[in-house]
């Protein structure tokens, strides 16, 4: 028989015992049959029980057997108090589930290595530049010529791969223009797949030969995910063609299933060779649009590489500066202050990582604290149980149970709680992690974080359950094993020691609860202030129809489409803008007043049609709207910030300025209108920038109107829900003029909200966990108070019998615990104040030292403590001294 049979025997323990007994009985029968005296034969056998035990231990694994017995016993213990057990399991499940969920997010976004060869040797090139306010801003984009220079520098030490940064979904079609659909293509160096050691699922992958001459390699590789979604894994997809922009691409293969791109948080749909990017972009030294990943060759260390890259970067900056002759000295100095960073990127590199790293860390901290609070609750529950079971433990010790066995007994019971909770928590995490990812993205930008539930997650869950078991089970277990039989059987040991432990745990709970509340308060009021930042326009009932044309169309056709849309029932007003407000797109320009050198502060340029300010309800302070005949670059409407920045706050009407473009030189612009500030950028934390609105139509150098291939129809609808008109308007645009097509429809409200989506997410989750923490701490406090009363009811009975007032007794029982609550709150205050520093980047117009920020959690917690104390106090003053004393 093997190990396996011994394990199996553990679970048929009774059967094993029976077999052993039967064999021994048959032996006795044989002996008696041969004429031996039955009594003598039985005596020769010695203790049957001992014999059975010895043989049993041989035939099964003794420790496993005892574990099984403890598990059965522990289960019965839990079932005896179904309500408390369920409460403990559920509160733990919520906390463990939240932790697992947070781990899944953090792991998927920040920790999990890319499924490529030698992910641990992947590094990324980033740049740190000093910004206006003295802090450092980090960006990781660079231009293609910069990439090629860096690649040449490191030819011997590393392979560099260029990957375009996520830039929204792109229109492409597998058929006619009417069948345009959206996908997330990514331009990658042809040698990327080979460098990463990737294999195709079918067909072939791109190679370095697909990335030789600009425009010469119209081949595409699909991601497995896209192949599944779009083609249902049809092998015939290979060989099909699609049109994107002006180029026709042929699909040559599908990448393996695990590789979803290097931009963690986005799933790439289509990989296209770098060489297919438009040649102007490829050649531009100043167009920063791609990320650089470096895979170090074996044995190469990153430090010398960083130094070499820095030297190259300096040379590049010197060359770039030459391209900006009109640049001020300050700008030039700033360019040379930029520092190249070379950071590990085993988990890939994406903007989502940058944006959510800190938010996720805080989330992880909050759920960790909630878990500790839940653990303290269960520890108190277990401690109270252990107290109630002191006699049972004493009995077990008296009849020979070892201390180890007792520790095991209690720990197994704790493990039941923890692992049941982990199982339920796993379900919670399975549901909640994708739910949270769903909350991070507005529908138009579907962030897709791959969230595998594999051994990493499972391992984390199991480790967490084990740690939790020890956290709340070890102290009660040691307490139980340290029981002194004599003291326990006599009727109790020092009753205060256990209560002191419980009170200390309450203090810890309150402290953690305070930190969670404090953090939640900061995040919620930050979000509140950020979301209520004035935008200066009315988003109500506004629908943005982002339209594109197959060939650039003259402005008059754009106006015709707008006119047609105005006739659609349910449409109130229509105007044109280059791209929707707060969509993340922007165009900036340098401003020069009276021929002076350009100023350091950039201005935003937003191209709009006549009537746009009226549609958006941006009030004019002075001057006029654009006339239909106005064209860029002749006239502009400016906002208050612009006036303050460049005209010293004077009325700008009739004044003029120059827009300075390093490429096309200076253009003189007359200010004809002056409007209130309105936000055009999605950076809600920054003040509204100087903005010049320019006419939607523009002329070239000779005064001819230029055709446009994209623009956005801003529609104010009559009905409260603008989306109700979306499908009608989508059909009306091509009907108004063929060649026009709506590529995307977004409400302005949705755009406004997406500017604060991270803050909203954090605020909602923090608030949720604050409520959970409060609830758990309240329940814990209630339990401990009630237990205290229960334990001291004899003492209270005596006190009442000799004339103590109810209020006296209530004070006596609650004073001690409230001093612990206060101590906990103070500790929480200190913890909160010290940790708030790390939050600073996520806060907005809120200071951790604000009285309201500190007072509110304190008041909430004390109030909750009072509420939790009520049942115990009632319970206590209802104690009837007579019946209490008679009971003993």
């Amino acid at each position: 028989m093997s190990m396996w049979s011994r394990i199996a025997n553990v679970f048929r323990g009774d059967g094993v015992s029976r077999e052993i007994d039967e064999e021994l009985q048959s032996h006795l029968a044989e002996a008696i049959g041969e004429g031996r005296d039955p009594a003598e034969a039985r005596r020769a056998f010695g203790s049957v029980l001992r014999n059975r035990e010895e043989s049993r231990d041989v035939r099964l694994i003794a420790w496993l057997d005892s574990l099984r017995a403890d598990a059965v016993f522990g289960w019965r213990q839990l079932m005896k108090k179904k309500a408390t057990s369920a409460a403990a399991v559920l509160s733990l499940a919520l906390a463990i589930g939240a932790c697992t969920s947070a781990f899944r997010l953090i792991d998927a976004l920040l920790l999990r290595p890319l499924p490529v060869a030698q992910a641990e040797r992947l590094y990324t090139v980033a740049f740190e530049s000093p910004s206006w306010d003295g802090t450092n801003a980090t960006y990781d984009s660079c231009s293609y010529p910069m990439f090629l220079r860096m690649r040449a520098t490191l030819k011997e030490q590393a392979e560099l791969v260029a990957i375009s940064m996520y830039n929204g979904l792109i229109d492409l079609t597998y058929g006619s223009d009417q069948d345009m659909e959206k996908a997330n293509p990514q331009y990658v160096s042809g040698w990327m797949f080979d460098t990463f050691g990737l294999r195709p699922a079918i067909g072939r992958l791109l190679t370095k030969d697909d990335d030789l001459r600009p425009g010469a390699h119209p081949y595409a590789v699909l991601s497995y995910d896209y192949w599944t979604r779009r083609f249902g894994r049809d092998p015939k997809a290979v060989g099909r063609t699609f049109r994107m922009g002006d180029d026709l691409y042929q699909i040559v293969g599908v990448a393996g299933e695990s590789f979803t791109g290097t931009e963690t948080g986005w799933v790439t749909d289509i990989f296209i060779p770098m060489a297919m990017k438009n040649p102007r972009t490829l050649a531009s030294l100043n167009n920063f649009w791609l990320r650089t990943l470096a895979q170090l060759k074996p044995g190469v260390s990153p430090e010398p590489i960083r130094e070499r890259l820095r030297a190259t970067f300096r040379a590049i900056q010197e060359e770039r500066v030459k391209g900006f002759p009109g640049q001020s000295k300050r700008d030039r100095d700033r360019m040379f202050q930029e520092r190249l960073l070379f950071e590990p990127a085993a988990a890939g590199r994406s903007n989502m990582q940058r944006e959510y790293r800190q938010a996720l860390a805080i989330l992880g901290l909050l759920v960790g604290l909630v878990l500790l609070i839940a653990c303290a609750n269960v520890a108190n529950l277990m401690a109270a149980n252990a107290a109630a079971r002191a006699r049972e433990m004493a009995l077990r010790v008296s009849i020979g149970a070892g201390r180890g066995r007792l520790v095991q007994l209690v720990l197994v019971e704790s493990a039941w709680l923890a692992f049941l909770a982990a199982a339920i928590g796993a379900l919670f995490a399975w549901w909640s992690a994708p739910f949270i990812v769903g909350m991070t993205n507005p529908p138009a930008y579907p962030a897709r974080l791959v969230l595998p539930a594999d051994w990493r997650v499972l391992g984390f869950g199991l480790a967490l359950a084990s740690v939790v078991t020890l956290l709340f089970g070890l102290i009660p277990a040691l307490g139980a094993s340290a029981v002194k039989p004599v003291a326990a059987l006599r009727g109790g040991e020092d009753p205060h020691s256990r209560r002191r432990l419980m009170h200390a745990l309450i203090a810890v709970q309150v402290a953690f609860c305070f930190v969670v509340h404090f953090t939640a308060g900061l995040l919620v009021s930050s979000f509140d202030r950020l979301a209520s930042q004035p935008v200066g326009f009315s988003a109500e009932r506004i629908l943005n129809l982002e339209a594109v044309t197959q060939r650039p169309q003259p402005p008059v056709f754009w106006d015709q489409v707008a006119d047609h849309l105005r006739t659609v029932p349910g449409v109130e007003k229509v105007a044109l803008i280059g791209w929707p407000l707060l969509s993340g797109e922007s165009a900036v320009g340098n401003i020069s007043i009276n021929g002076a050198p350009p100023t350091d502060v950039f201005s935003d340029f937003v191209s709009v049609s006549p009537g746009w300010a009226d549609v958006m309800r941006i009030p004019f302070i002075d001057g006029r709207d654009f006339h239909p005949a106005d064209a860029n670059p002749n006239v502009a409407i400016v906002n208050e910030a612009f006036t303050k920045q460049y005209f010293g706050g004077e009325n700008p009407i009739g004044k003029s300025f120059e827009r300075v473009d390093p490429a096309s030189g200076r253009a003189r612009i007359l200010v004809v209108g002056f409007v209130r500030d309105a936000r055009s950028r999605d950076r809600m934390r920054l003040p509204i920038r100087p903005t010049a609105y320019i006419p939607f139509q523009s002329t070239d150098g000779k005064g001819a109107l230029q055709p446009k291939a994209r623009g956005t129809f801003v529609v104010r609808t009559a009905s409260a829900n603008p989306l109700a008109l979306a499908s009608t308007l989508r059909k009306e645009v091509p009907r108004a003029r063929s060649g026009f097509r709506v590529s995307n429809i977004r409400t302005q409200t949705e755009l406004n909200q997406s500017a604060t989506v991270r803050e909203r997410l954090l605020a909602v989750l923090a608030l949720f966990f604050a409520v959970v923490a409060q609830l758990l701490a309240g329940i814990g406090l209630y339990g401990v108070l009630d237990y205290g009363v229960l334990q001291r009811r004899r003492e209270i009975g005596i006190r009442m019998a000799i004339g103590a007032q109810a209020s006296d007794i209530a004070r006596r029982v609650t004073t001690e615990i409230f001093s612990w609550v206060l101590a906990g709150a103070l500790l929480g205050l200190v913890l909160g104040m010290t940790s708030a520093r790390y939050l600073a980047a996520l806060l907005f117009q809120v200071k951790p030292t604000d009285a309201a920020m500190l007072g509110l959690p304190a008041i909430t917690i004390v109030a909750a403590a009072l509420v939790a104390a009520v049942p115990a106090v009632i319970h206590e003053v209802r104690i009837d001294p007579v019946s209490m004393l008679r009971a003993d």
Partner: protein
Amino acid sequence: MPKSDSLQGSLDLLVLNILSRRPRLHGYAIMSAIKDWSGDVLRAEEGSLYPALHRMEEAGWIHAEWIMKDTGRRARTYELTAAGKKQLAVEESRWQTVTSAVNRVLRTV
């Protein structure tokens, strides 16, 4: 009568040896065989025989099987496995080594 302890070192050897010559014996028969074949000198105690049998069964040296006896009772019989035969050889040579070593000690004056 020797104490059960003194047999312990050789109990496995005896049981394996007996089972190699007489397969499919039950516990009582093995005990009787030890007693009879040793001319009443050696005696295996029930208290050590059965744990030893179960231990050897665990180790895979012997294989147990329930048979129905004429009396209507079930009895558990044992026989040697291939591993048991090898083990018997090992035990025998170990025994030879020990006894010859003991003899050498006794002969040294």
